[in-house]
């Protein structure tokens, strides 16, 4: 009856040791996270809110089309209307920093796993573990190592959101037509070149889906990050819960939804050939190709004349 595994104690002890031994490392990490957060936050918070709304709407038009542009403007105006703009900007900065770092780590890990079966076998359970462990549990050691504020929120978000990035990158690269990869090999291309010229371009839709998932998971973590004093929309939601303030809760909550929809649609449109930007790009490529073809044809006809 008295048998009990003190697993929690061990892990906690491990983190204590980590903190004691590598405090300089975590201190540096904290500084970097805070600096990154501040930089991104500054970009969105410095211009007047309405200017940002217009810029975002223009971006939406380029990425997806006019309907999305109108929708995003309306959504952002709603956030301003419920006086959650500053919180939303904080949350956005947090999501962008965490997602950026998560992409930076997970895409190369996914590529590595795709090229090496052993790595894949090791990473699979690790990713399962990271994704299923209740997100709150990360917060405790993160808090211990990085102290209250943005830094523990970034690390917890990043770990939580990484898994789909790794998985979808690996899946995408493994799913590239085997014959096309063989073609690269058969013509004597270096594996790195095959990766760059064949595997990554062809796996791009899957990698993009992974990045989209990373951003969505980061956002879902933002509310929880309010617990560790990261502020933003999550901070207000936490405050609303503790004060049983339904009004504030709804306003902050709906702002999270607006942000989520915006980020999802933006990232989902990457590489799908939607919006004004890709229309322009397609037109310019088509024009270039047509010009090239015309040049070929013209050269051929002069050759033919000379030949005759």
């Amino acid at each position, binding site marked *: 009856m008295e048998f009990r595994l003190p697993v929690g104690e061990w892990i906690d002890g491990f983190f204590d040791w980590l903190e004691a031994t590598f405090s300089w490392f975590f201190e540096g990490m904290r500084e970097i996270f805070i600096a990154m957060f501040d930089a991104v936050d500054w970009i969105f918070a410095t211009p007047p809110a309405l200017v940002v709304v217009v810029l975002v709407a223009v971006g939406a038009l380029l990425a997806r089309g006019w309907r999305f542009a109108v929708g995003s403007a309306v959504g952002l105006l709603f956030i301003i209307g419920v006086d959650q703009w500053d919180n939303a900007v904080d949350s956005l900065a947090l999501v962008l920093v965490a997602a950026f770092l998560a992409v930076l780590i997970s895409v190369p890990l996914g590529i590595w796993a795709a090229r090496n079966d052993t790595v894949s076998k090791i990473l699979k359970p690790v990713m399962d573990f990271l994704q299923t462990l209740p997100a709150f549990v990360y917060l405790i050691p993160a808090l211990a190592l990085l102290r209250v504020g943005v830094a523990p929120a970034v690390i917890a978000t990043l770990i939580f959101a990484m898994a789909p990035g790794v998985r979808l990158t690996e899946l995408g690269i493994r799913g590239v*037509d085997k*014959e*096309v990869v*063989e*073609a690269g*090999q*058969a*013509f*004597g*291309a*270096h594996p790195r*070149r095959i990766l760059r*010229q*064949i595997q990554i*371009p*062809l796996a791009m839709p899957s990698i993009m889906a992974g990045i989209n998932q990373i951003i969505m998971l980061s956002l879902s973590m933002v509310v929880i990050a309010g617990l560790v004093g990261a502020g933003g929309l999550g901070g207000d939601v936490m405050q609303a819960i503790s004060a049983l303030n339904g009004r504030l809760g709804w306003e902050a909550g709906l702002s999270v939804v607006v942000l989520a929809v915006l980020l999802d649609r933006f990232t989902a449109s990457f590489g799908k050939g939607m919006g004004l930007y890709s229309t322009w790009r397609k037109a310019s490529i088509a024009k270039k*190709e*047509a010009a*090239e*073809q015309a040049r*070929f*044809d013209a050269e*051929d006809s002069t050759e033919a004349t000379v030949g005759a």
Partner: protein
Amino acid sequence: MNDDTIALRAEGLYKVFGRHSDDAVLKLHRGTPRDQLGAGTTAAVIDASFEVRRGEIFVVMGLSGSGKSTLIRMLNGLHPATAGTVTIGGDSITDTSPKKLRELRRQRVSMVFQHFALLPHRTVIDNVAYGLEIQGMPRDERIARARKVTEIVGLKGWEEKHPSELSGGMQQRVGLARALAADTDVLLMDEAFSALDPLIRRGMQDQLLELQSELGKTIIFITHDLNEAMYIGDRIAVMRDGRIVQIGTPEDILTNPANDYVEQFVQDVDRTKVLTAESVMRPPRAVVHLGAGPRAALTTMRDEQLAGAYVVNKDRTIVGWVRDRDVFDLVRKGEKDLSSVIQDDHGAVPADTALADLFIPSLEAALPLGVLDHRGRLVGVIPRVTLLAALGGEPEAAVQAAPRPDPMPTDEVDQVLEAAVGAGAGDTKEAI
């Protein structure tokens, strides 16, 4: 060590997938059947040895699962061999560093794939130039060269299209152009035409043969289609269950199958397109020399019981043919020269004519169809029964069913020959 005429040599190649592959090779070497190697171990290629001569089309033919795709991938090292060696023009593929192997692939051997394997995000011209790009050729130069090759395969005007805008046949021409542009001696083609419609496939086969006659590449072609193998192959290796069961020319394989498996396989082949006049012809029976004169000619025809005979010069080049009753008349008149009755519409065909193209000439010829070598010499004849027997797969049957000539009555001829002045022509029919 290496003969100059050999482009690629494979010796004792084994490919075993799964665990204990080296063990498995030893077992196979000692004669263990491949289905008794144990679970998790699959022998895809067993003891394959062959030589491919420079400039020939060497076809590896087998059903799916026979190991042919694995075999071709061992020739450029996409699948490392478990045992055995591959050398291309004196350089080993099987025993070399990854760097050297990439260099060999760039310079010596290129490949065409079953499902084209084009880069979908690149234009036709950039796909064709891909091999050159990897060889490190500057852009302008490689585009210029790629354009030439694109034109050769008939895709002029499509340079700036993307593969998805092209039909299957055109896509495979891009694949072929990409391999040709790399300008390697050896070309590996893995079921290159199998994914195409039959009509387009036939067109591609013709185009390949045409290109081959111009460029003189060494081509190793994989197919499961025996008709395709017979049509394009100079030599064919037939594979079954990982082993090469026979290597030979299409005619060898058709006429002397090494075992029941090959024999069963070749039953469905359209023989008329593979077999040539040379392979079914008989020695000419009644041949008359131009200078021999009417009496000798008539004697020969009587002895052979024939109603007509070919007339040849001293060096056996053909002059024409004579009918027995014309010669009979000459002999009666006491003429000494045969040339007045020689007919020159002999209709003889070159020795490499396919059986399919013999039927009409055979119908039109009055005598068994003559066969000429490249210098115009009469080297054989094909009686119609022989043609029919060859079609049935039993050329020997023609011997039993020897042609029944319908010559003039012998006694009548004898009379004329003896008297040298005849008693009048008998009731002769035109014989065949």
